[in-house]
């Protein structure tokens, strides 16, 4: 049994300790956003945030996450109440098939939390581990820039952002 904090809630999971986090999220906790893409950390579709850092959930055994905080796309808003990153992707229509998008959003979210003023160059460099096959890259970059703008004043006012 491993206990971890998922999207702010403490969850005890029964999966064997070597199970990659991805399968725990999807199969045991019923979360859809993190996707299986390669199982090798080469495409980024499975990316989630662990203790503020973007990680590949497909190669991270759940035993390494005891007591740690995991954030997935489900934790940054919902379709009824989307967070700034999600609003930006909707506003820019930054998806075609959309399968790679949650992973990109997670890495961008972690980056903007760390550096709300990340330059275009820094955003591009940060996204290097991620693949998109539909060719939606230009929109993804625009959406992240829009999210950055949206997240900046909010963080200044309330001291928090989602």
């Amino acid at each position, binding site marked *: 049994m491993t206990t971890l904090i998922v999207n702010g809630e403490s969850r005890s999971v029964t*999966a*064997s300790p070597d*199970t*990659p986090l991805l*399968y725990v999220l*999807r*199969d*045991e906790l*019923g*979360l*859809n*956003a993190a*996707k*299986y*893409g*390669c*199982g*090798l950390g*080469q*495409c980024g*579709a499975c990316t989630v945030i662990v203790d503020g850092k973007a990680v590949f959930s497909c190669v991270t055994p759940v035993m390494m996450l005891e007591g740690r905080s995991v954030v*997935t*796309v*489900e934790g940054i*808003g*919902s*379709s009824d109440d*989307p967070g700034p990153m*999600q609003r930006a*992707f*909707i506003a820019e*229509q930054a*998806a*075609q*098939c*959309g*399968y*790679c*998008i*949650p992973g990109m*959003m997670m890495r961008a979210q972690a980056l903007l939390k760390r550096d709300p003023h990340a330059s275009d160059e820094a955003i*591009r*460099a940060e*996204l*290097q581990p*991620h*693949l*998109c*096959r*539909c*060719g*939606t*890259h*230009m*929109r993804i*970059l625009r959406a992240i820039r829009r999210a950055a703008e949206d997240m900046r004043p909010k963080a200044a006012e309330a001291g928090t952002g989602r």
Partner: protein
Amino acid sequence: MTQAFSRRSVLAGAGALIVAFQLSRSCAQTETGTGGGSPKLGLPGSLDDTPSIDAWIRVDSSGAATILTGKAELGQGLKTALLQVAAEELKLPANRLSLVTADTARTPNEGYTAASHSMQDSGTAIRHAAAQAREILIGEAARRLGVPATSLQARNGEVSGPSGARVSYGELVRDQLLSGQAKPASRLTPPAEFTVMGLPVPRIDIPAKVTGEAAYVQDLRPEGMLHGRVVRPPSYGATLRDVDVAQAQRVNGVMKVVRDGNFLGVLADQEWPAIQAMRTLAASTTWIEQQALPESTKLPAVLMNLPSRDTTIHDAGSPGKAAIFVEGTFSRPYLTHGSIGPSCALALFRDGELTVWTHTQGVFFLRDAIAGMLRLPVEKVRCIHAEGAGCYGHNGADDAAADAAILAMAVPGRPVRLQLMREQEHAWDPFGPGMVVKLRAGVGADGAIADWHHEVWSQSHMMRPGPPGTLTAARLKSDPSPPAPPIALAQPEGGGDRNAVPLYALPNARVISHFLPDMPLRGSSMRSLGGYLNVLSIESTMEDLAVRSKQDPVEFRLRHISDPRAREVIETAASRFGWAMRVKSSGGTGFGFGFARYKNLEAWCAVAMEIEVQRQTGAVRVRRVVAAVDTGQVVNPDGVRNQIEGGILQSLSWTLFEQVTFDRTRVTSVDWSSYPIMRFDSVPEKVEVHLVDRPGDAFYGVAEAAQAPAGAAIANAIKDAAGVRLHDLPFTSVRIRKAIGA
């Protein structure tokens, strides 16, 4: 109507059976699997195959409408565009519309969602069916109100008259009201009155996708679901000599190991145990393999020396007198579709009936193939489309559905979710075929093209289901289905020879298609089929002829093309790019241009590009891309832009990076490190898309319009920057550096 009449009279004659057989064969040989013969009823779009209005549109007593389409959402924004069309013509707000996509039990059969045909086939059908349904509702209101229909109008789900009388659609609709056959002509809404069509309506599927709601077949988790995985042979044609099933059976959580000939699969209650059992099972196998693959370094020569069926698909004039000649042999390697989500399906066998949720492009053909593979009556199999990751053609979707079906048959009553592993998706993909184009052309003393000779070599681009033998599992089972015969898609759409006939006005031109019945590697449909290499070759040659004869490449193209819509996209792309004023900012700068009308029948697209080639490394940096596209009547301009942007970037990836690798036995590009594609460091700095507005025109397919001109533009930009013409794809930094001789 004339055509329908004359066909009927032929069928009445003595040769009836033969003619009917030929017609149905020709139907099977289009890329969508429908149409291709003469029109049956003379009705617009897919109405010609499914003429009753209520097969497409149902209005219920609450006044809400359900739209049914045989096409599928592949990430191209189809659902949103079809709803826009229906809302516009039905005069019903979009929030009162729902959409059912490809389902063998519910929707019309529209063949494959392929060939950029969906708006043309389904969009046209739904538009006319909706317009006719609206007129029927108005007619019904006229009857009830006792006023002439011409005094009534439909708006917002109601029919209203001059006296203030109003009747809602829900009140008007009654049994069988919409069950009649559609008519050839409809009262379509004029573009000036559009309130939904032509607007950048946000996609209905994006909110769920960016918030982690269940959006994909991968996300389905019905009660009692088991996870399945398969073990694939290590190479084509390998036979299983030995396997230790018991070992895999002992993995914690494993329910069952399934073996049927060379087909191996596992079932477990959780996904990770299924993967572990798959690995255990794979490790316990020994296979007999053959060295059946060609030598990869000699692929172009291998292809050109295979037995071929040769057809002269274009023959005009006779070889003219040319002063300047350009000659080149272009090749592209096998390419993989490369879905980011490996293919997945869910299957349930219960009470003798099999249901498969699948991201196939053709539910009806897949149903037939699975029924054939399992020897089940077709009516006992239902296939329902559920979205997957983008497929870009015939990828592993159908194979995964077949795998899931076999595993589900082993555990009646339990839903089985099967997902392929990355290496399985990569190694067993029905690749975009390797191809060769040999082109020789010349310019006469007057500066016009005097001679043109194009030959193309390619295997089939159409190995989709239908025949069970197209499914990997069907070939692996102990009772294997026979291999599917290779299909040569016919001109004018073409397969390997798609877009091989230049759209340019060339008095002396010859184009020969060498169809290769052999398939050195498994191949099938991938976006734009042969159009990508044919256009890249044609446009490279155009560029070189222009440069050699000291003419501007854009002017040279315009000089040879009369089609006004082609001219307009070429001129728009050139002027928006600032082609005439282009100035190289450094020695590594290159400018390139590319144009094509997709299939010579669909959207027109021109692309201008500025790149920077780093001479020491050969690396290409794309500075600026400007595209112009004419896709006829635009339903959703942002959707069109998204497709064109995507096409450009995908094509840059194919052109600069991609190549399936193999040794004499196995495919060796089995992940993203052995098959690199574009990453963010190679994404262009800027991409602009300009739409040519054609209100009131037909729909012309757009999703594959950009790939070929974008590939051509970068090929020409590399030539301009590096001073050397590359012929063998991909144009990797290593090859560019070598060509420069740096």
